[in-house]
Structures are given as C-alpha cells and as structure tokens.
C-alpha cells in the first residue's frame, strides 16, 4: 500500500515551490496589467521568496527521517542540508533579481527559477534512477530556458542553444547508462543496484554504463573535457540565470552524483588510493578531476572577459569538487557539501556584483570592473570577499572548503596513489588561481574608474543579498563546524 501521506510529507518543499510558481504566474496575470516590468518583477520575486521560505520550513519539517516509499526518496542529513542549501542559494538569486535584471517576462522568469529549484531539491533526495533522471531534467530544461531568457540579445540565445544541445546529448547518455544499469541489475533503487552489482561479476556492459553516466556527470559538473558549454553560457546568459546555473545547480548536481556513485555503484568504484589502480569509476573521475584542474586554472589565465574567467574558474573548482567526490567514500559527503555550498555562495555573490555593475553600464570585460572601489565601496568590499573566498584565502569559507576536501582526499591513501598526487597538484594550482583572481581584484580595488563611469547605486534588495552572502561566507569561514558537524 502506498503511503500517500508520507510522500506528501516528504515532498512538501517541492509542492511549496510549484504552488509558489503557479501563484507567481496567476498574480502577475491578475495584478500585473498596466504595471512596469520592474514592479512586476518585484512582486514576483517577493512571492518567489515566500515560496522558497516555505520550502525551507517544509524541508526542515520533513527532516531526515530515512527512506520513503521503498527507497525512492531518501531523507538523510545530506538531503536535508542540500535542500536548505539550494533553497538558500535560490533565495539569494531571487533577492538579487529586482533592480538588476531587465526582462520582458518577469513572472515567467521567477516561475521558471522556482521550477528549476524544485528540480534541485528533488535531486537532493532522489535515490531511484527514474526520479533522479526526472529531477535532473526538470532542473536542466528550466535552466536551458533561463539561459536564453534575454530574447533581445543574440548571445543569450546562442548560450541557450549550446547549453540545450550539449545538455540534450548528455541526457541521452545518462538515460542510456541508466537503462543499461536497470537491465543489468533489475532494479532502479540505488542500494539494490549496489547489492546486485556486488553479487554479479563485473561485465563489460557495466563499464559501458559507467562511462555513459560519467559523461553525463562531467557535463552537469562542467568538468573537462565536457566543459565547453560553461564559458559561453556564463557569458551569454542573463546574469541572474548564470548565478543560478553556477551555484544551486552545481550543488544539487554534485550531491545527486555523489549519492549515485557511492550508494548505487559502490562495488564498481575501483580504487585510486594506490598506483596499481583497480578499474572502476574512481579512476575515471580522477582523470576528469585532473583534467579540469589543469585546464580550468590555465585557461582562466588568458581570459579578459570576467564571466568567462569565472566559468574557467568554475571548471577548476569542479576539479576540486571531484576530489571531494572521490574522498566522500572515506570522509563522508561533509567536505564536498561544505565546499559546494560555500562555492555557490561566493559565485552567487560574484554574479550579483556583476549584475549590479551591468545595470550601470555593462559588465563583460575585466576592465568594466575598474575602479569599483570609487563607484561603490560596498560592491568593492563584497567582491573582495567573494573573490578571495573563491581563491581560498582564510578566514573565508572557500579556504575551509578547500582545506577540508584536500585533507579528506589525502586521508584516503596518503601520497601512495593518484588521488594524493592530484591533491598536491590542486594545492599548487591554487597559487595559479590566485593570480587570475587578483587580476579581478586589481581592476576593482587598485585601478581608478574610467572617466565616463559615475557612482553606482545599488538597489536595496541587491545590497541585502550581497551583504547576506558576504556575511555568510565570513561566518561559515569562522565557524565551519556549523556545517561540517551536520554529517
């Protein structure tokens, strides 16, 4: 007998979001007529924020009570933390939106952000292949639309098309991988798949399925060599969409895959703790991580567009996050979650600053950030915190994320295997990272503004969002145990 009450209880956050999205659309139809786009966006964002707040309460209410409906959903501490994390990041994005984005259909923008978010929260708790795929596609399809939401700019359309085509291919890969897994094991639920794999001997088909899934994973995580969409999307998409794609979507994606890989495919993990590595998905993930770290950091050096620079830095961070994925088997998902969540905070913040500067005369090339410290000291101070957190400078959260992930990765096998050496490489590459982050900060804090650039007035809501994000980064940096202690 299916327990519908339990399902409803577990899915209340998603229900709040979907109802919220419908309310946003309805209210806009009802009250929006004759009002400016700015006013409509403000109203829609407010309702959206309410829906997010309700979803956060619902997530906390649903708690971490274990499996629901024969293991289709898993409500554990990771799921709860991720739900709250993605909702928080979406909340910040929505708070940033009014006054910093000029769109023609504000209610639809907010509604689609809410749909995407319900995809993210489902990804956080999905433990069954079918639901995982649906959640992922709900999120992805919403994000494709968000990337192309600015219909007046060809760059936005180009970004959406690239994102959609590559995303579609990766979805096909994933579905094919899932279907092979189902065929091999006869189950869709992750723990049962793991049991079935452990019993059966490893077959070539399983390896094919693994490769398919990892390709799709690489795409979602923007890990090299499947990263090509990221720079174009970050550059072309509306800033608010880019903020969501770079933060909440990353967090939900990594959590879904860490679940899929560790609780569903554990027997096929292989090993990277020693050099005579056992075949499995771990060596492949290690390859993706290494490639992302090198490519992201080195290509970022050559960027003159601040969004593309952030995109390549995101690829480098994806490499570090993959180290966290590999270490999650021993250290648990805590370091990975902490890293992804604080990385999301810093990215939302950085894109928030870009969005505000964008409204005051465009923000594409690095030199558009010149002299922010004169134009708006608040923006400069916030940007300093976000960028230094991305660079991993203490006492900001980004540093502890890196530190926790690297420490966890080194605990797996010390320097006795590829994982240890990858970690060392990641530590050294962070010095390269500091160079390009300092290039951003040099523009913002050292150089003077161009002659024709005046003061920037930061809308009150954006100010609140930026201060919140910066404050959280400092607070989580000073007290990382608040998050790390959850797991």
């Amino acid at each position, binding site marked *: 007998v299916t327990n519908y009450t339990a399902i409803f209880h577990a899915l209340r956050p998603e229900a709040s979001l979907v109802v919220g999205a419908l309310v946003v659309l309805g209210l806009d139809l009802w009250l929006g007529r004759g009002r400016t786009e700015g006013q409509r966006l403000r109203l829609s964002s407010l309702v959206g924020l309410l829906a997010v707040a309700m979803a956060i309460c619902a997530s906390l209410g649903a708690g971490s009570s274990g499996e629901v409906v024969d293991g289709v959903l898993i409500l554990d501490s990771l799921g709860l933390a991720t739900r709250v994390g993605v909702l928080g990041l979406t909340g910040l994005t929505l708070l940033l939106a009014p006054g910093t984005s000029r769109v023609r259909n504000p209610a639809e923008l907010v509604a689609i952000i809410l749909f995407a978010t319900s995809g993210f929260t489902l990804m956080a708790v999905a433990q069954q292949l079918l639901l995982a795929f649906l959640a992922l596609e709900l999120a992805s399809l919403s994000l494709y639309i968000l990337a192309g939401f600015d219909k007046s700019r060809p760059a936005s359309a180009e970004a959406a098309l690239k994102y959609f085509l590559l995303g579609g291919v990766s979805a096909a890969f994933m579905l094919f991988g899932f279907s092979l897994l189902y065929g091999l094991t006869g189950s869709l639920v992750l723990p049962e798949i793991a049991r079935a794999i452990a019993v059966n001997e490893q077959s070539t088909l399983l390896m094919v399925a693994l490769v398919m899934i990892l390709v799709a994973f690489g795409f979602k995580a923007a890990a090299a060599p499947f990263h090509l969409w990221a720079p174009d999307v970050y550059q072309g998409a509306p800033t608010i969409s880019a903020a969501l794609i770079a933060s909440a979507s990353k967090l939900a994606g990594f959590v879904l895959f860490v679940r899929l890989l560790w609780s569903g495919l554990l027997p096929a993990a292989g090993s990277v703790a020693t050099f005579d590595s056992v075949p499995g998905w771990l060596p492949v993930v290690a390859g993706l991580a290494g490639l992302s770290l090198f490519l992201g950091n080195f290509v970022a050096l050559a960027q003159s567009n601040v969004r593309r620079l952030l995109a390549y830095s995101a690829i480098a961070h994806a490499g570090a996050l993959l180290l966290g994925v590999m270490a999650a088997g021993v250290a648990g998902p805590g370091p990975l979650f902490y890293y992804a969540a604080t990385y999301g905070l810093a990215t939302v913040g950085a894109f928030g600053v870009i969005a505000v500067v964008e409204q005051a005369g465009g923000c594409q090339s690095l030199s558009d950030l010149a002299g922010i410290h004169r134009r708006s000291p608040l923006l400069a101070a916030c940007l300093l915190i976000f960028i230094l957190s991305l660079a991993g*400078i203490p006492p900001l959260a980004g540093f502890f994320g890196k530190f926790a992930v690297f*420490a966890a990765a080194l605990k797996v096998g010390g320097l006795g295997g590829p994982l*240890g050496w990858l970690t*060392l490489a990641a530590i050294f590459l962070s010095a390269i990272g500091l160079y390009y982050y300092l290039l951003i900060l040099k523009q913002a804090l*050292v150089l003077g503004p161009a002659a024709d650039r005046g003061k920037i007035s930061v809308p009150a809501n954006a100010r609140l969002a930026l201060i919140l994000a910066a404050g959280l980064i400092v607070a989580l940096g000073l007290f*990382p145990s608040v998050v790390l202690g959850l797991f």
Partner: protein
Amino acid sequence: MNALPCTVYVSLVGALLALIAGGRSARAARWIALITATVGWLITLGAAADFVPGPGLQTLVNVAWIPELGVRYHLAADGISLTLLVLTGLAATAGILFSWNIEERVGEFFALFLTLIAGVYGVFLSADIFVFFVFYEIAIVPKYFLIATWGSTNREYGAMKLVLYSFAGSALVLAGVLWAYAANGGQSFALSDLAAAGANFTAGQQIGMFALIFLGFAVLAGMFPFHTWAPTGHVAAPTAASMLLAGVVMKLGAYGCLRVAMPLFPAGLEFWQPTIAWLAIIGIIYAGFVALVQEDFKFVIGYSSVSHMGFVLLGLAAANTQAVSGAVLQMFSHGVIAGLLFAVVGRMVYERTHTRKFSDLRRIPLHRLLPFAALTFVLGGLASMGMPGFSGFPAELTILIGTWKTSPVWATFAAGGILVAAAFTLRAIQVSFFGTTDHSGPVATADAHGHEHDYAPITWPERTGAMLLIAATIYIGLKPDVLLEWIVPALQSPLFQSILKGGAS
C-alpha cells in the same frame, strides 16, 4: 602574558576603525592606526615585562575550533615568539609613523596595514599549525593591495610577483602539513601532537615533508634562489610596507622554518642540512655582490635584506643552540635595521628628491641638505655592517660562532659575506649622502647663510620613528642578553633539543 592574543584582536579592530574613519578624516585614520599599533606594541612589552623564560610554549588560549578536523584555536608563546612579537609591535609603530604622509585612500591603507600586522602577530602566537597557516595567509593578501595601490616603481608587477611567491610558498607548506596530518591519521594539527607523530614517519616521508614545508617557508624568508621576489617587491612597496616586509614578514618565513619544519621532522633536517646551509651561504654572498652593483638605492637595501636573511637561514641550518639563538637574534636585529634603512631611503630621501638613482643622488649633497637622514642612514649602515655596539654585531657573531661548531667551512664563507656587506653598505653611504661637495650641481642650492630650502624638513613622525628604531638597535647591541635570556631557555624545550646539537651557550 595572557594579554598577548589581544594584539591580534586590537589590530583587527583598529583596522576596521581606521577604514571607517578614513572615509571622513585622514587625520583620524592616522591617529587610530598609530594608537592601535602602539597599544599592540605596549601589550607585547607588557607581556615581556612579566615574562618568565622557560622551555616550552606557555599556552594563552586553547579552545576547540573545528572538531571535525581536529583543529584547536591554540595560541601560545615562548621566548622566541615573544622576541618577534616585540619586533612586530616596534616595526608596526615605526611603519605607521613613516607613512604619516600617505594622502590617498588613507583609511584603506591603514586598514590593510593593520590587517597585515594582525596576521603577523597571529603567526607568532600560533601553536596549532592550522591556525598558524590561517594567520600566515591572512598576512599575504594585504601585501598585494599595499604595494599595487600605494607603491612606486613597477608596482603592479612587483606586487603580483611578491604575492604569488608568498602564496606558492604557502601552497608548499599546506601540502606538507596536510601530508603529515593525513599520515598521522588526521587527528590533530597541534605542533606537539604532530611532533610526537613525526617520530613514526619513515625517513623518506620526513625528508619529503620537511622539503615541502621548509622550502615553502624559506621562499618567504628569501632563500636563494627563491629570493627574487624580495628586491622587486621591496622596491615597489610604499615605505611602510617595505619596512614591514623586510622587517617582519620575511621573519615569518624563518620563524615557520624554525617552529614547524625543523622540530617536526628531525630526519628531514639532517638530510637537507648541508643543502640549506650552502644555499644560505650562496644567498649571503651572491645577494651581497648584487647589492654592490645596484644603481637604485632601494635595490641595495632590498638585496642587503636577502643577504642578511641568509645569516638567519645559516644559523637555523647549523642547528645548534648557539647558532639558532643567534638566528633569532638576527631576525630581531635585521627587522629593526632593515626598517630603518628602508625608512631613510623610501621616506626621507625618495619622497623629497623623487629619485633613487645613485647617479642623481651623487650630485646632491644630501648630508648637508638632510643631515638627520644622513645621520640615521650612517647609524643604520653601521648596524647593518655588524659594527660592535649595534644589534647586528652580537647577532651575526653568535651565528658565526655557532656555525663554526657545526662546520668551520660554512662559517668561513659566511664571514666573507660580512666583508661584502661592509663594502656595499659603505658604497651606498658614500655615494648617496656624501657624493659630492661640488656646489654647481643642478639641484642643490644654498643661500648665503648656508640654509637649504630645497627639501621639506624632516617631520616629527619621521624623527620619532627613526629614534625608536635606532634606540632599539643600540640597546640590543649593548645588551643582547635581554633577548638571549628569552631565546636560549626556549630552545631548551624537548622539542628543540631533539634537533639541536651542542649545549647551551
């Protein structure tokens, strides 16, 4: 003693206040910065007054910070850290006095300056490597903005180079520390715990960990051939930042080598000892010769810093009680002297003549135009050469005697370095201040009474700062025991005794 952690907090609060005040009044920001630095210094002096020398670190604060990683917020001090804390307070106070003339973005300047100071205090107080590392990195970023915004010659290049070298060094340290932490099972970052665990590491592990950590710190201490950031960075930096960089920040590196790398990995030290010593000796002599042919006044001081820091590294490499205590003394001494020399060159001379080229300075009779600057530089130069009566003398002598006990060959070569130091210092004094008596030079003019009108007179903050530094170098020169009585007992702790050979001096 127990007030020492307040140095960090006071500096941070002062930084915030200076930043806020700077938006309204530059004067207020200056005074806030000066008061903050002075209070920090007084705290260290107060701690020094009731300090009871003894072996081992005296814990000041010890609370759990990140239990998941086994990190504790553990601050402690012994005679070595106290020496350097007093130096930091002195250098910070003097540095602010010498930046009294900063007019642009004053609040931000002093906020960054005080943040850097807070990081430095924190490093010297840390007894947990994680906390050590956090403070160490906090001290890195302000340097970039201080140099890139308020610097001079080639400042953006100098700033970036300096910060990337520092950060690459800290990445090496992080790698080594994490390796040791993971190899120990990931329980704790406490110095004492890791030192206890160090005995269980294989020799190969110790050699690798030591190499990473020592090299990482030695980059910041200016060890040859990783010293090139130092002259360019020091030259590009504004005066106060050069004073602090050469005076205190380079000591962070040496302190890290002494506090973290050496006691934790005895086998590593034994393996790398000759390499470090020879690199230190090459640094002493090579940087000395390079300083001898510089055309830019500030580059001479920049390279002289590298040369003098070579003595510190040599003292550490000799690894006996006397040499290491000399190295700590030299850290203090060089901190004071380098601050003094950079103050004269960067503030007193360059801000007035707007040139640092010897070919230009040669034509200006600076000893008559700026007699106070000339006097200060001569005193600083004598101290730097290691003349008796100044702090450089007991410091370098102790290092040389200590080194002789380990290897007479090293000591002989290093003694040669002292001659080179005398040569480049005397050349700098002669060419810059006493270049000519020819009155027909294009810049210099004197009226009938012999009064000079060209340059603004030396201001009171400059005089006060210079007096403080001169007094410190002479006091320690005459009574080095004051510091040695703190340092030597600290080296008697079991942690240090396991790596130091030779008895107490």
